[in-house]
């Protein structure tokens, strides 16, 4: 009885004090320890199961990733028409913490709309460019966290993107990149990762949401059960947004006994798209 009371009080306190949403709080979960014996074990293959990569904001289903004006409202643009329902955008309640829209500066919002209107030509995902952070986390393919005694590394199946999470601060990034420079630390059982050094060409999703090179992403990975993590990413970019904002979502452990990252080296798949017109004998 006493143990039950203690756990209820502990749980209530945790709900009041922690920033972690009370998604699992009958008993606060304590994950098995990782290789250092101190911090939770994040080793495993994980994947988001939501519509974030389609659109971070709350959105209704749409006919296509790129639309044109039809006689009675938007219809798929010509360049995606043949995809039919496979190319439609599923609805989502959105992943923005507290709901609402992304707080764009006015000119940045215009750029988002232009991005969305010309999605096929402009979304770097279409060309198999690396997804950046946080988009890599919620691509529709799994990723694997490698956690050693002192080191953490994340490999994403999509385009084989990778992130070395430096657990000692190496100083400012020496060069800008697609995946940025990630610096990690533990706060209790939460892995906090600060990522900077982006060149600003990656998008946040297929809806044209974008950032600049000033982007700073602060992620929080917290084990909630043997089967899922709670993931948050705080997004700061004074060039693009009027204030910082945060996304959050569960990340689920892939439970299949034979699960492993497979190859998705998509540069091969976009060669015709990017270089077809330069062939000696262009195809019809």
């Amino acid at each position, binding site marked *: 009885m006493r143990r039950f009371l203690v756990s209820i009080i502990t749980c209530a306190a945790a709900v009041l004090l922690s920033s972690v949403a009370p998604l699992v709080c009958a008993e606060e979960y304590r994950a098995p320890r990782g*290789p250092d014996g101190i911090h939770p074990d994040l080793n495993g293959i994980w994947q988001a199961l939501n519509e974030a990569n389609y659109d971070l904001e709350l959105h209704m289903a749409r006919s296509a990733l790129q639309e044109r004006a039809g006689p009675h409202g938007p219809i798929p643009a010509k360049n995606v028409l043949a995809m039919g329902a496979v190319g439609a955008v599923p609805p989502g309640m959105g992943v923005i913490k507290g709901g609402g829209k992304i707080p764009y500066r006015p000119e940045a919002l215009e750029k988002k709309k232009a991005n969305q209107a010309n999605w096929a030509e402009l979304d770097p995902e279409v060309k198999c460019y690396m997804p950046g952070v946080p988009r890599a986390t919620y691509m529709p393919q799994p990723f694997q966290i490698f956690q050693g005694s002192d080191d953490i590394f994340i490999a994403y199946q999509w385009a084989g993107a990778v992130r070395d999470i430096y657990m000692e601060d190496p100083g400012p990034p020496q060069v800008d990149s697609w995946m940025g420079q990630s610096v990690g630390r533990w706060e209790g059982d939460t892995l906090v990762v600060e990522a900077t050094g982006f060149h600003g060409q990656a998008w946040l999703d297929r809806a044209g949401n974008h950032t600049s090179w000033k982007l700073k992403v602060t992620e929080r990975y917290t084990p909630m059960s043997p089967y899922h993590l709670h993931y948050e990413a705080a997004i700061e970019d004074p060039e693009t947004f009027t204030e910082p904002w945060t996304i959050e979502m569960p990340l689920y452990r892939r439970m299949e006994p034979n699960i492993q990252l497979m190859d998705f*080296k998509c540069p091969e798949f976009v060669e015709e798209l990017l270089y077809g017109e330069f062939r000696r004998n262009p195809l019809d």
Partner: protein
Amino acid sequence: MQVEQETYTGAMTSRPAGGASRPGAVALLAVLASALCSPLACADAAGDRPDFTGTYDTATMTPLQRPKEYGDQLILTPEVAEAAARQRAAYMAERSRDSDPERGAPPAGGDGSTGASGNVGGYNTFWIDNGETAIRIDGEYRTSILTTPGNGRRPAMTPDGQKRAAARRAFYRENTGEAWWLELDGPGPYDGPESRTLSDRCLLGFGSTGGPPMLPTLYNNHKRIVQTPDHVMILVEMVHDARVIRMNSEHAPPEVRRWLGDSIGWWEGDTLVVDTTNFTDRPALSMATRDLHVVERFRRAADGTLIYSFFVEDPNVWTEPWGGEYPWPASDDRVYEYACHEGNYAMEGILKGARILEADKLAAEAGDAPDVGAGGSGN
């Protein structure tokens, strides 16, 4: 673009002097660290195993294949090794001097030298990072990375392998500024992206840098290892490829093919053994086929240096297995992002350039022929 170093004269370029490796200091630190740390922190997470987590710079002057004049001699004398290192350092210092700001442009087509002005698209020494010293294992310098066969050179190829090698050689000729391939009966080397090498296409790094076997190459020789209880992840700098070795596991079914093969690992004492199969039809190792089978071993030498060894079998290509070893010195460097595909302007340039040369050649032929039709070959 496999660049083989066939001599020890230091004629091949390397990065400028200044980035010295410090094996002595690293070894000392390793000894001190092991004396000070707790069993959990030093042993790998699986128990008493070594932990190979770290960053390594695998560049070396030592060639893959032994120069023929050494015959069966595996060990290189310190005098020759140290002289080669000095020569390399001097050569690099010379090649790294500031250029003359008053110099004019090289002539069209290049000046024929081996430097950046020699031909279109050459690297100068700033870009090259292929080792400052010969490899040294247990105190002894080596004449080659290969140890098997006994002459340190790849064994003979099968007739099939020889045919494929000859066909591949026919595809590569010096860039003369003319579309010589228009005379070929069949595909040319610039017909489309699939005609190019896997590294031109940004699908794999050149020189079998990712392999397996993982071999030293012209630059970007860094490897980053993160070891967990159930996996060993090896990041190959080119092209940001994460090799994932599943410990104490089974190979994927034969339908699963991987660019870097399917790797499983286990411990034999303090040696990590990695077995790789299930390659695609074009493994990173030049000339290999989907039946390639590679066994790698990772161990620490007495001084703490990571020693990487490999054994290669592909009965479609080589008449015997072959293999070798070389050290992976620890590095303080961090691996930068190698965003090859995202910046692959070269592919467009290569193909467009070929189209221009073809048009030039066809126009020239049309110009020469008095009864000019719609132009020569028309394919």
